[in-house]
């Protein structure tokens, strides 16, 4: 996949074992700078654990090699803010490096309107955008999104992916995203890594429309809706 000069991440024979259970088994892939990799797989396939291994938050065997000058921003699937009286401004200033209004602008939020709002009072879509802005705050050039549209209503999902695509194009940011949607994978990622503890597929995302690949990943052909 592309030449090695442009490679930003190389994962070889990655295995993770937690509490005597194999969570990831011999996963290998390579990723080029400025591309988007979608990670697909059933629940318990090891998708989030793969991210944790990439962030060096869980013990693993095998090799994870990030190329030099990589700054990783991470957006987890869920956060708990309901009971914490913290404003958007206070949350974003946990990280330093970039201007807050620039990062909020990049995710199409108006700093003047949102900075003093309580983080726990934001809508699902606003919260996701603030989290993406947070991940950009320290000038990250690799972004890891664990289901970036969790808690977002259907109408607001697509604009978030459009925005991520724009970030990738404009700033040459490399994106790794976990998704359950065939449509999102096909439309907004360049490469697909299908996991079920081991790699079931790695290649170009457009292959996802191939019924035999869908059978391999899900055990059956998936009907394509606007958002699967």
């Amino acid at each position: 996949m592309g030449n090695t000069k442009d490679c930003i991440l190389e994962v070889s024979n990655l295995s993770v074992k937690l509490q005597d259970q194999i969570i990831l088994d011999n996963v290998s892939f390579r990723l080029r700078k400025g591309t988007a990799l979608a990670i697909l797989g059933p629940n318990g396939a090891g998708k989030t654990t793969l991210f944790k291994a990439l962030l060096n938050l869980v013990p693993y065997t095998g090799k994870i090699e990030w190329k030099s000058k990589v700054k990783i921003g991470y957006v987890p699937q869920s956060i708990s803010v309901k009971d914490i009286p913290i404003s958007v401004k206070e949350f974003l200033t946990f990280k330093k490096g970039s201007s807050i209004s620039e990062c909020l602008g990049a995710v199409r939020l108006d700093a003047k309107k949102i900075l003093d709002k309580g983080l726990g009072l934001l809508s699902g879509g606003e919260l996701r955008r603030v989290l993406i802005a947070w991940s950009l705050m320290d000038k990250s050039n690799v972004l890891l999104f664990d289901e970036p549209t969790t808690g977002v209503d259907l109408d607001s999902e697509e604009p978030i992916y459009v925005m991520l695509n724009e970030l990738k194009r404009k700033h040459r940011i490399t994106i790794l995203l976990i998704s359950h949607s065939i449509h999102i994978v096909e439309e907004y990622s360049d490469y697909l890594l299908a996991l079920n503890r081991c790699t079931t597929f790695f290649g170009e995302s457009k292959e996802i429309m191939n019924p035999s690949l869908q059978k391999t990943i899900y055990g059956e052909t998936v009907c394509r809706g606007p958002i699967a």
Partner: protein
Amino acid sequence: MREGIHTTDFLTYSLIIGVFVGLSAGYLGSIMVLEKMALVGDALSHVALPGLALGILFNFNPFIGAFGFLFVSAVIIWYIGKITKLSYEAIVGAIFTLALAIGILIIPEVDLLEALFGDITKVTLTDMLTAIVISVVAILLTKVIYRRIVLGMISEDLAASTGVNIARANLLYLLLVSLVVAVGLRIVGTLLVGFLVVVPAAAAKTVSTNLLKYSILSALFGALSSSSGVLLAGYLNLPAGPLVVFSGVAVFLATVLVKWSHRHAEPRT
């Protein structure tokens, strides 16, 4: 009253201790309330009782004994929490009644009331200076780790991905709480000092929309509760502990009233 010490002396000392312990307990308590560890603050203070008892029995400073017990308990709680991922509340809940029971059994009966409810008439200049130093150090160190702990509450993974060592920050925090609780025992007593950690922060949370306001109000409400309690105790010649509790509850009810009136003032949509 002890010979050679004027009422105004111990009252002044107690008042200053009250202000500093109230500030630090309120500030540190603001994290505890967010972590849903309110029971920890309350229960941790009971753990001090066996330490106080040992000090009295073996004739060394009972507050050093109390701090020793609090310190060791905090480390045990932290370690069990780290390896089992049980909530701090569950762990403390399991050991605090045991500590209280041991303390009540071994402490001489004559000293029990003072240990449980504090006694401002026995406060000295050294107690006051110790309280000031410990409170200031506790506030400054907590300020350093405050954001890290809050980020860990929002998401442990998020915090860890930015290089925050949550376990280390939590350990330091529990140790600082132990210190502040040990100092607070002097005037409020082991049964009620936990109140100072929990209620001012709960009151501040009721009326706060951001972290800065919340932490500052927690500290100020703590200082207000304890200083007004000590003053009342001095003038009414009653134990300070219960009066600090009454003052704190009054502050809490005032914030509930403010919140209630704001809700009613908001236009209905």
